[in-house]
């Protein structure tokens, strides 16, 4: 059970007013707000521990290295990876996927091999593969969607073949909030010996994720969408894959020895973490996961489901509103338009009421084209949101309807 008042007290920004109104922050799919302990962890880092890690023998560097590695262990536990060294810290989901696109393709792909993505992917899980297609002659197949915006699983199965080397797919769609049937997707891929990358950016904030149980080869997400810091991303990859892949970036910390002729790579995960990392992101990541664990992912999921259902029901009662992706298995996100208007108009009016939603194509232009619309208004929830906020929001939408139509 959730004590939402107690939770809200932990988020300083929720006291903020926007355009004279209390902030109603429904843009959590873009980035969540941060609890005080995350902010404090950064202050503490810079006031007590700041130093470069991994290479120093002095006390600060040693203490901080342990702190940073503890963050890795916290992530490992959070997604139940087998080893801490299967967790590579990156800049974000986009960075993680680009890393895989580069290192996986250099280790395993040759022209003519196939990668499967879907039409609902975020550009960050679309463009890197498109680039492999254009630069390396890897073929990219796109799973089409049903009318409601779900994956067409029959079509997916037909796309799979021995040529398929990788399936790259979102766990939860960022535009519509649909939860994809990963079990089936992964087991079908395995039948053909293909590896699977799961873009979990919109899943980890809302669902419990167990990478071992899923059997995912790669699982990626961003801490900033999970109550954590910006500039901090996660790439989980199975040890054997990380071992076999060449580094993505080259620089300090990734080598055991360098001569002018050749180099020997450092152990995992250092091989994939060239240069000084986002060190403050370590303690902040740990603090964010601590917050999530304390509330409990099960509680978060149940509570957000309540919010989502309540909001869907209310929105559904407004005749002038069209909701997209209106199916059962959804998480965190609701996408809609006021009929015959542009999402930008709705977003602008809601903003004047202090309500922050996202409007636009949400970096999923292929999906928008599929739906035949320029974009949507997206309300996305976090554990600190309330039914009262949804009431404000619904009133806001009604007001926008009145003003626009």
């Amino acid at each position: 059970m959730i004590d939402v008042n107690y939770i809200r007290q932990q988020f300083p920004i929720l006291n903020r007013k926007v355009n004279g109104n209390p902030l109603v922050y429904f843009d959590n799919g873009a980035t969540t707000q941060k609890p005080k302990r995350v902010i404090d962890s950064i202050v503490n880092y810079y006031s007590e521990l700041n130093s470069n890690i991994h290479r120093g023998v002095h006390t600060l560097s040693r203490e901080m290295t342990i702190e940073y590695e503890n963050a890795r262990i916290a992530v490992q536990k959070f997604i139940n990876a087998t080893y801490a060294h299967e967790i590579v810290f990156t800049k974000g989901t986009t960075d993680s996927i680009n890393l895989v696109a580069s290192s996986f393709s250099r280790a395993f792909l040759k022209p003519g091999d196939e990668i499967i993505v879907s039409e609902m992917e975020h550009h960050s899980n679309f463009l890197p593969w498109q680039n492999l297609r254009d630069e390396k002659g890897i073929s990219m197949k796109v799973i089409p969607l049903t009318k409601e915006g779900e994956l067409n699983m029959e079509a997916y199965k037909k796309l799979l073949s021995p040529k398929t080397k990788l399936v790259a797919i979102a766990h939860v769609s960022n535009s519509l909030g649909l939860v994809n049937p990963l079990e089936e997707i992964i087991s079908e891929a395995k039948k053909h010996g293909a590896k699977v990358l799961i873009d979990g950016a919109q899943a980890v904030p809302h669902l419990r994720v167990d990478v071992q149980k899923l059997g995912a080869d790669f699982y990626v997400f961003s801490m900033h969408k999970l109550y954590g810091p910006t500039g901090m991303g996660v790439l989980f990859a199975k040890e054997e894959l990380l071992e076999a892949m060449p580094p993505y970036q080259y620089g300090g910390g990734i080598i055991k020895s360098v001569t002018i002729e050749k180099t020997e790579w450092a152990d995992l995960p250092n091989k994939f973490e060239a240069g000084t990392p986002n060190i403050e992101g370590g303690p902040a990541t740990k603090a964010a996961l601590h917050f999530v664990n304390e509330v409990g992912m099960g509680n978060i999921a149940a509570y957000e489901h309540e919010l989502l259902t309540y909001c869907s029901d209310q929105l559904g009662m407004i005749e002038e509103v069209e909701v997209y992706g209106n199916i059962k298995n959804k998480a965190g996100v609701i996408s809609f338009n006021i009929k015959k208007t542009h999402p930008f108009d709705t977003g602008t009016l809601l903003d004047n009421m202090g309500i922050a939603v996202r409007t636009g194509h949400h970096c999923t232009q292929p999906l928008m084209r599929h739906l035949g619309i320029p974009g949507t208004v997206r309300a996305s929830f976090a554990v600190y949101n309330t039914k009262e906020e949804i009431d404000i929001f619904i009133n806001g939408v009604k007001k926008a309807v009145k003003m626009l139509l």
Partner: protein
Amino acid sequence: MTIEEIEQEIIDEFAMFDNWEDKYQYVIDMGKDLKPMAEELKTDDRLIKGCQSRVWLHSAVKDGRVIYTADSDAIITKGLVALMIRTLSDHDPEEIINAKVDFIDTIGLKSHLSPTRANGLLSMVKQMKLDAMALKIKLSN
């Protein structure tokens, strides 16, 4: 009227509203009232790319003055576009080029002119001035 006079007129109009709802309603209504642009003018080369709403702009000269026609797929943007046309259209190029066009700030819709506002309004003003400049050169040849 000079551009400056029109701007002042608009500022005076908006001064009558004491809440954002009325201001925006006025903008929305102006958007609805804007003379529709011929569909065949809505071509990609007339598109001013903002991130979210699209704006088409067409510029022509009549009697040495620049006449603008424009449209947008978002109604608030279209209202702002209407304001811009009312302000800048039917003036001579020189005056347009030198216009400050800062009334948007004054009437309290400032955010729409900020460089980050994803609606292309700022780009639109720029494009209107560029067109005026091009037409001026054309006229003087």
